[in-house]
C-alpha cells in the first residue's frame, strides 16, 4: 500500500465515527493445502496457523485465515520474512503480492457498532464477532475484508477501485448511525 496513492480524501469523519486510511505495509495472498499453510505459520514462528476466520500476529506480520485454503498476510514495509519465502520455495503454493490492490481504513468511534450495522448484515457484536475475528464479506457492492482489531476498533480493506465507493458508503452509514 504505497503512501502516494492513499488519498486523504478517502478519510471519513463524522460525529461518533472515523475511518482513517491505512498507510504503509504490504499485503500477500497465500493459497495452499492445509499442510502448506501450517508450514508457513511455523516459518513465521507460530505454533500453528490461525483457525478459520481467526488471526494471529507474528512480529510485524499478521496472518488472517480468510478460507480453509487461504491466508491473507499483512506485513511491514520489508515484506515477508526470509524464513517464510524460503519455506514456500519448497512446497506447492500460490503466493501473490496484492499490496497495490488493497486499500484500507481503521474504523473507530462510539457510533462504530451502529455504523457497521448499517454497512453489513453480519452480526459484529462481541458475542459473534470477537476480537481477532476476520472475514471477507460484501459491503453494498464492494467485496471487502473486515477484521476486529480491538473491542472498539475494526480494520476494513477493499480493492482499490472500490475506495471512493466504500468511503462514501461509510460516510452515509455514519450519518445514519448518528441520526
Amino acid at each position, binding site marked *: 500500500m504505497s503512501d502516494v496513492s492513499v488519498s486523504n480524501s478517502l478519510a471519513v469523519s463524522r460525529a461518533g465515527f472515523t475511518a482513517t486510511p491505512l498507510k504503509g505495509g504490504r499485503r500477500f495472498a497465500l493459497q495452499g493445502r492445509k499442510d502448506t499453510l501450517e508450514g508457513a505459520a511455523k516459518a513465521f514462528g507460530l505454533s500453528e496457523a490461525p483457525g478459520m476466520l481467526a488471526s494471529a500476529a507474528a512480529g510485524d506480520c499478521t496472518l488472517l485465515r480468510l478460507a*480453509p*485454503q*487461504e491466508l491473507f498476510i499483512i506485513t511491514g514495509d520489508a515484506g515477508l520474512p526470509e524464513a517464510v519465502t524460503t519455506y514456500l520455495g519448497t512446497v506447492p503454493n500460490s503466493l501473490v503480492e496484492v499490496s497495490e490492490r488493497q486499500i484500507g481504513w481503521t474504523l473507530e468511534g462510539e457510533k462504530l457498532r451502529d455504523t457497521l450495522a448499517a454497512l453489513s448484515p453480519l452480526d459484529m457484536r462481541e458475542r459473534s464477532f470477537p476480537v481477532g475475528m476476520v472475514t471477507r*464479506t*460484501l459491503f453494498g457492492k464492494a467485496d471487502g475484508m473486515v477484521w476486529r482489531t480491538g473491542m472498539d476498533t475494526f480494520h476494513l480493506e477493499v480493492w482499490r477501485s472500490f475506495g471512493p465507493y466504500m468511503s462514501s458508503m461509510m460516510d452515509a452509514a455514519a450519518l445514519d448511525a448518528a441520526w
Partner: protein
Amino acid sequence: MLLIRCPYCGERAEVEFSNGGEAHIDRPRDPMSLTDEEWAQYLYMRDNPKGLIAERWRHAHGCNRFFNAIRDTRTDRFVVTYEIGQPRPEVTPEQAAEAAR
C-alpha cells in the same frame, strides 16, 4: 434476508453466494466410448425438479469455496449444506416437510 450456511464460515447472507448448478454430476471416465446422445446428456441435461435439488454453491464473497446444498426449489429453503466430495445426504420426511413449508 435468506441465510445460507457455508460449511466453513457459518450462516451468511444470500448475496455472498453464487449458484454453481446441479451437484453430483460426474464426468464420464471415457468420453470417447460415449455416443453423442450420452455426451449431450452429460453436458447439457439437468434435472429441474419441483422440490428438493442438490446443487453446487460457492461462497463467492467469503471463503470462495464451493460446497453442496440441498434446497427446495419451491420455497428456497435449504435443508442442509455439505462439503464437496461427500455423498448426497439422506433427507428425512420431517426435513423435507419443513423445507416445503
